[in-house]
């Protein structure tokens, strides 16, 4: 993975010193909250319902063991012994005290981490496929390009005060595991007719109160021109994005109001001016960055899982292998997802002890590499198949071996009203109730792949719009109500879910989801037809009827 150079080290430690002085001035009364607020937000420090919340950046979801160990240390020393992994592949601490934050940032800088640009109207953490550099279906490892985008976008002088926040996602595989069409800019690796790999660019996607699917603005941008093209898109957005209304300030609204053709024309015009200039990425620089992401020294092996054998001999382990392993590009290896969705637990949370255990496993079994997925799980990207049993045994001991990845209990869930100052309703208890209802291994296996995403408000941090079943918390006359949507899809077949009917109370959500599941089980053509495939085949009508039935 990428290692800081002297510039990076100086830049991050300089920011720590700067923020330490800002905190000192705030506590001394030299700064008002109005003056201090933008400064703390630039360093990832929010004020939530009960306390401050510090959002720490995990660049494109990639970490090593010492970094995760440091996060565990911070959780234990400065917080309450746990952290919350987010859909932005970051981690949040819910209980830091203001005067401790400079120390936390200093500790983070020791392992090349920070909280810069995790808030504010700037380019946020670039997100990517959690199996980047490991997936069998990958056309290209997107991490070097993600790192180049990180360097370009960090404290970019022109784009530090955009009309609104700006999110870029990138995937190097044809299967979109990074929800690229729901980002301000989405990049998908693409081969041109000559076999050269470049990037297909989508623009104007997003969730929130106005969900939109990103549209392809350019079929192919070569590596060397990518920064120039991104800069062109950002310039058009920075110039024409609506600053008059924060709810209409994202690029998706600009694209929607002006039309893709107009935006494309403006971007192309800008691109012609900057193309071939200082932003051109030389092949030698790309190679230099690529070297940081060179594949580890894999041991040649033709080991494979024999799932039938495993199912006969150890059903629990077989389920773990079936659901939590992902095909690796190197024979004899697999990528293992560590589910942070224990039945009845808080989705995305990990204790300090669990983080340390995972860090140890990464060192012992995954070449010191770790990933955070946008689905709020952790990943050991390169595990030898012969080591999977040993990894599983350790995970089991620390309540980390839930075999549910991609199943109904692997829910994306925002912190909701239990923590968030913006939320209207709680999300976590809904996820817990649903997990308890559907959580037996047999039930989950019977239902098969099904994504439930839960948000506590219309800002959609829980990605409810793209849940196969989405749950949106709203508040009506002091009561939490939940609106269910159907048919959302974050994959390459991107779709926004349709609202099924009026909101229902929390206690009614498990039964409502039960009726949707039963409808699916009753109408699927074969056991291999997934929930979302069945919804796309038959449409929403039978599901809506089931939802409305009491």
């Amino acid at each position, binding site marked *: 993975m990428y290692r800081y150079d002297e510039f990076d080290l100086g830049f991050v430690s300089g920011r720590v010193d700067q923020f330490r002085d800002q905190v000192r001035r*705030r*506590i001394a*009364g030299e700064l*008002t*909250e109005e003056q201090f607020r933008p400064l703390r937000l630039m360093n990832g420090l929010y*004020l*939530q*319902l*009960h*306390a*401050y919340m510090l959002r720490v950046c995990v660049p494109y979801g990639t970490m090593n063991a010492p970094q995760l160990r440091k996060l565990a240390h911070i959780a234990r020393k400065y917080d*309450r012994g746990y952290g919350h992994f987010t859909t932005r592949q970051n981690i949040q601490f819910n*209980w830091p*005290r*203001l*005067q401790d934050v400079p120390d936390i940032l200093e500790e983070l800088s020791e392992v090349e981490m920070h909280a810069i640009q995790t808030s504010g109207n700037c380019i946020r953490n670039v997100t990517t496929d959690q199996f980047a550099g490991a997936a069998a279906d990958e056309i290209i490892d997107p991490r070097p390009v993600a790192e180049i985008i990180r360097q370009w976008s960090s404290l970019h002088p022109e784009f530090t005060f955009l009309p609104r926040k700006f999110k870029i996602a990138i995937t190097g595989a044809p299967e979109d595991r990074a929800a690229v069409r729901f980002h301000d800019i989405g990049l998908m690796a693409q081969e041109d007719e000559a076999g050269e790999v470049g990037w297909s660019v989508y623009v104007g996607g997003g969730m929130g109160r106005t969900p939109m699917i990103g549209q392809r603005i350019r079929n192919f941008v070569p590596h060397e021109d990518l920064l120039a093209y991104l800069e062109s898109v950002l310039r058009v957005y920075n110039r024409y994005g609506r600053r008059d209304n924060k709810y209409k300030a994202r690029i998706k609204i600009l694209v929607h109001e002006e039309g893709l053709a107009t935006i494309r024309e403006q971007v192309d015009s800008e691109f012609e001016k900057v193309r071939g200039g200082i932003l051109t990425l030389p092949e030698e620089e790309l190679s230099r960055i690529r070297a940081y992401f060179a594949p580890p020294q894999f041991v040649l092996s033709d080991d494979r899982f024999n799932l039938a054998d495993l199912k006969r001999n150890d059903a629990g382990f077989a389920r773990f292998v079936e659901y939590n392993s992902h095909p690796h590009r190197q024979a004899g290896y697999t990528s293992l997802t560590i589910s942070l969705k224990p039945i009845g637990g*808080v989705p995305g949370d990990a204790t300090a002890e669990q983080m340390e255990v995972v860090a140890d496993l990464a060192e012992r079994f995954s070449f010191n590499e770790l990933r955070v997925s946008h689905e709020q799980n952790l990943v050991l990207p390169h595990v030898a198949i012969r080591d999977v049993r040993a990894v599983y045994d350790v995970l089991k001991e620390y309540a980390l071996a839930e075999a549910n990845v991609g199943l109904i209990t692997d829910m994306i869930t925002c912190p909701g*009203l*239990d*923590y968030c100052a913006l*939320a*209207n309703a*709680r999300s*976590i*208890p809904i996820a*817990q109730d649903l997990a308890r209802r559907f959580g037996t291994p047999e039930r989950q296996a019977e239902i098969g792949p099904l994504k439930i995403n839960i948000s506590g408000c219309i800002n959609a941090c829980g990605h409810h719009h793209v849940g196969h079943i989405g749950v949106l918390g709203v*508040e009506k006359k*002091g*009561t*939490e109500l939940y609106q269910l949507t159907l048919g959302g899809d974050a994959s390459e077949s991107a779709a926004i879910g349709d609202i099924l009917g009026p909101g229902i109370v929390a206690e009614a959500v498990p039964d409502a989801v039960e009726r949707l599941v039963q409808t699916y089980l009753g109408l699927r053509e074969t056991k291999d037809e997934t929930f979302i495939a069945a919804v796309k085949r038959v449409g929403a009508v039978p599901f809506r009827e089931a939802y409305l039935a009491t």
Partner: protein
Amino acid sequence: MQILTANELLSGASVYFGDDRHWHQDIQRARIFSETEASELDGLIAAAVATKRLISVAAEKVRIDKGRVVAQRLRERIRAEGPTSPRHAVQPLRESDHVSL
């Protein structure tokens, strides 16, 4: 009926303005303001902001239920009692965090 609430600067903890002019963590110690005390409430909000030790200072509607102060909004009830599932205690104030007007 209203109470006066804020977040304390150092801890970020939820606090409530009491009859003794100190800020307390326990909502049950909050002073209750009647509709006729709106102008005094405005003055206290301005004074609280001026301390620079209190953030998000606001009046919040409450009711009295069996002798206990209960915030009207669920958000405020969770804010007063802590996250619900699992239940976490609210952020504690340390000695140095206490503020008075």
